């Protein structure tokens, strides 16, 4: 695949960050093996009850092989193994494309396997690797450009959708929702939650900062370069903040992985 340097650099960076993300994601599943056993929260015996074809028939039998241990553990090990092969430069050409396609396939299979416990970062992971696979198999500069623009637009859509939804809610506008979610055990940070509860004006200001960032994000395409860089930094800071305060580590990684596509798209203007 011969691509202009700007495309090749962006794709290489997206791939590297994305592979780091799926490696961490797989390792997190495997770090708590009891949760993916049939005795755990993510028991396949229970997860498959959502569809009759997952319970009986030839497809169900096939899924059981890959979605129950030891198949599931092997499935989760595939992505870190491929990440290592690519990191050491052991795959080139069609082999590289095939391996990224396998990563994409495993990433979407993980979404089939786990109907709960996933979040928006897993969605972004699936979108990134399916798009990279398509780019690699077609292998032309035009295909790379289309894929990178697509990832950019998905990133902008994510901010737009979330921003306008927040703007409609009084609790987001007055800052109470931010203070409350940061006070929760699941997504909160005890000290930050307490501080924002005690300082509602700060919570309101931060809440409006998030809303403003998300709703105004597409203006990045018309801003002068230094201002666009500032908006990108603010976007990344938002994800780092959610990682630190809410423990959403894969949000930082997978949304961060889409930023090289955005930087490339800005360079087209």
């Amino acid at each position, binding site marked *: 695949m011969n691509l202009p340097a700007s495309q090749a650099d962006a794709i290489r960076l997206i791939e590297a960050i994305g592979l780091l993300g799926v490696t*961490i994601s797989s390792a*997190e599943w495997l*770090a*708590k093996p009891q*949760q993916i056993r049939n*005795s*755990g*929260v*993510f*028991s396949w*015996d*229970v997860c498959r*009850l*959502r569809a009759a074809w997952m319970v009986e028939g030839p497809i169900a039998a096939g899924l059981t092989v890959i979605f129950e241990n030891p198949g599931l553990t092997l499935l989760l090990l595939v992505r870190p193994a491929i990440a290592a092969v690519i990191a050491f430069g052991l795959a080139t050409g069609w082999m590289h494309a095939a391996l990224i396609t396998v990563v994409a396939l495993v990433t*979407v*299979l993980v*979404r*089939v396997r*786990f*109907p*709960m*416990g*996933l*979040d*928006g970062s*897993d*969605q972004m992971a*699936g*979108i990134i690797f*399916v798009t990279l696979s398509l780019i690699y198999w*077609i292998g*032309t500069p*035009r*295909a790379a450009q*289309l894929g990178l623009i*697509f990832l950019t*637009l998905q990133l902008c*859509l*994510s901010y737009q*959708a*979330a*921003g306008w*939804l927040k703007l409609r*809610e009084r609790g*987001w506008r007055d800052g109470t*929702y931010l*203070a*409350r*979610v940061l*006070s*929760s*055990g*699941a*997504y909160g*940070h005890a000290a930050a*939650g307490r501080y924002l509860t005690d300082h509602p004006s700060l919570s309101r200001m931060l809440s409006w900062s998030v809303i403003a960032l998300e709703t105004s994000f597409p203006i990045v395409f018309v801003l002068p370069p230094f201002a666009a860089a500032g908006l990108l930094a603010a976007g990344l800071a938002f994800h780092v903040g959610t*990682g630190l305060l*809410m*423990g959403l*580590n894969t949000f930082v990684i997978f949304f961060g992985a889409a930023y090289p596509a955005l930087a490339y798209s800005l360079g087209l203007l």
Partner: protein
Amino acid sequence: MAASEWILAGILGAWLLISAIGQINVSEPRSVYQRIRQWDLFGLIPIWTFFAPRPAWTDYHLLYRDRLEDGTVSPWTEVVPATGRTPVQALWNPAKRERKAIIDIVRTLTREIQDGRGDLSEEFPFAGRTAQHLPAKIFTSLGYLALLHVVSRIPRLGTPSETQFLVMQTDVAESGEPEVLILSAFHSL
């Protein structure tokens, strides 16, 4: 453009369009996304909400207790106890999946209870409801079975004959006092 590039443009364009349409009224029970999701086996159509419209500030606690063969009942034990936030979790947070799963399952179950009782309109109006008050079909619902499965498969030292689960909710920003959300019946082990 080559034919393959036209096909790619079509695929990515359609994907983006469906993704955008899926965001319309996403918080409504009969949103476009809910209809799309039935066909989106691989979860490739995203729902981009980032904690909107209402973030999950309620914490759910899944507990269980056993009835032994001599009739005595064990104390309540929490299945996934909450842990404090640490900076390391910005890089490595394996516990988040299990906790999110409990939230997802409880939310599914409360929705199933709500669907079974049309007169309940608040988000979580079931506080204080015991198994006797739950609609009968809830006992075979995916959410109920999932929670029962989790507590039933926990290794025990003794040989209890029955187990019961309890879902409690807390809202630190409010009183912080735990409140009973769902209390199951006793089920044979």
